[in-house]
């Protein structure tokens, strides 16, 4: 049933949307958009290393993202520079190092556009397995740590005082984020993955009233974006990543309309 490249892409993309829904909500609740972006930029370095040492791409990207996350924690202890400066520093230095290394590996042909913006043609049956199995693991872990993570998101001190162990779970959350970026590189590309984390969650916030609702609607909007985006990509022969994100942003704009209408009705 996965013979057709388009079916493979669709199945993979839907899998990714299911994972990015809840993680994306946590990312925007915790104001971590730039953190996701930094991890995604560093993914290019991960991909280069994967080619250089013939490693699995997702594995290599995951390791690099995890290292970046630890580096960030370490940097925060050594300097008083603001978080966004440190993130920018890490994002662009890893991106640059990745590109320089890529230059050294001139014998290997890189599909730069594919890495940056995603390439549905390259999705294999193994990728489907990776996304669905890896995704199930990520969601499983997230389910178990949700209460702690959520309480720490609302108020860290409160969660700490009442024994929710937020420090450990924050660390695990960071690894899960690295994981989802690793899984979605091929599909969305490194430049746009943060978009798939944030936009469906943001659109969902506009039309929901409690945390669970927001997570489920974010998943639905993600699935819609992937599905419509991929069909558009196929029809118009555009890159898969940007097409998915364009659909997501259209859905976001639609999510604003009821707010506008409500405002007018009240007047």
């Amino acid at each position, binding site marked *: 049933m996965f013979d057709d490249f388009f079916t493979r892409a669709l199945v993979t993309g839907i899998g990714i949307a299911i994972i990015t829904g809840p993680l994306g909500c946590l990312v*925007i*609740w915790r*104001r971590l958009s730039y953190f996701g972006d930094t991890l995604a930029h560093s993914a290019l370095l991960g991909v280069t290393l994967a080619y250089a040492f013939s490693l699995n791409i997702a594995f290599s990207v995951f390791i690099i993202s995890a290292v970046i996350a630890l580096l960030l924690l370490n940097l925060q202890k050594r300097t008083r520079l603001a978080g966004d400066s440190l993130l920018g520093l890490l994002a662009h230095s890893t991106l640059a190092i990745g590109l320089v290394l890529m230059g050294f590996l001139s014998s290997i042909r890189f599909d730069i556009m594919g890495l940056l913006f995603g390439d549905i043609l390259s999705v294999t049956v193994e990728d489907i397995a990776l996304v669905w199995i890896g995704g199930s693991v990520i969601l499983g872990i997230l389910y178990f740590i949700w*209460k702690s993570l*959520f*309480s720490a*998101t*609302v*108020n860290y*001190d*409160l*969660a*700490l*005082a*009442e*024994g*929710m162990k937020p420090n450990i779970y924050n660390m695990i959350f960071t690894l899960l984020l690295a994981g989802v970026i690793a899984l979605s590189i091929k599909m969305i590309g490194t430049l746009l993955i943060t978009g798939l984390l944030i936009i469906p969650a943001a659109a969902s*916030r506009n039309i*929901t*009233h*409690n*945390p669970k*609702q*927001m997570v489920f609607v974010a998943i639905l909007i993600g699935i819609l974006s992937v599905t419509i985006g991929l069909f558009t990509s196929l029809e118009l022969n555009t890159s898969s990543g940007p097409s998915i994100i364009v659909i997501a942003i259209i859905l976001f704009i639609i999510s604003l309309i009821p707010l506008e209408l409500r405002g007018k009705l009240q007047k």
Partner: protein
Amino acid sequence: MSSKNNLLVNLENAGVYKSPKWLIRGVSLEVRRGQIVTLIGPNGSGKTTTAKMVLSILEPDEGSMKRYTDKIAYVPQKINIDWTMPLRVVDFMRLTNNLNDNEVSESLNQTGVEKLFKEQIHGLSGGEFQRVLLARAIAKKPELLVLDEPVQGVDFNGEIDLYNIIKNISANLNCGILLVSHDLHFVMSATDHVVCLNGHICCSGKPSTVIKDKAYIELFGEHRSKTLTYYQHDHDHTHNSDGSVSS
């Protein structure tokens, strides 16, 4: 039960250093079951820091903190919930606790805000939010309850209400309460033990002793410590006419 068993938390000569100075030093205090211990003192005197040591949010850099319970509830001084997070009162009540709808309503009822059950947290007034915070803490049925300025933003009658509720909690749940408060007349009328802080412990003891202490009078001024006797009387009077608390 021996008094040793009633001990919930014990700070001994504890201090927290944050470069370049000590936020607080040399704090020794105990909270026991059924006891209300109050921390008073001017801004920046280390009240919140002391409370955070008791909660293990801050580790003491010198001295020690020993705690004999894990059933803790906390009402922080400040809590900002961003609009990005859609949160109803009922979701907030279940933050660190698994409660069914009845338990949630019951606790909200105790602080007089059961009608807010499904309201968005962001739409609450300051006073309503304080009541929800207190209800959430009560719902945990803690052995140790730490309240950091629990009545801020609450109107005058509400303040009396909430303080009555706090007094009742310590009796009903038989828990120990550590309270940070500015409200000297409540402190003096309803507290078992007062600790007066200003970077260190200025004085501590029963309210009736502390009120006569030189360090206390210096810190709060002769005028306020004198008017206090008037307030104290006034407060007792309100209680009696209320009928809810016998003093």
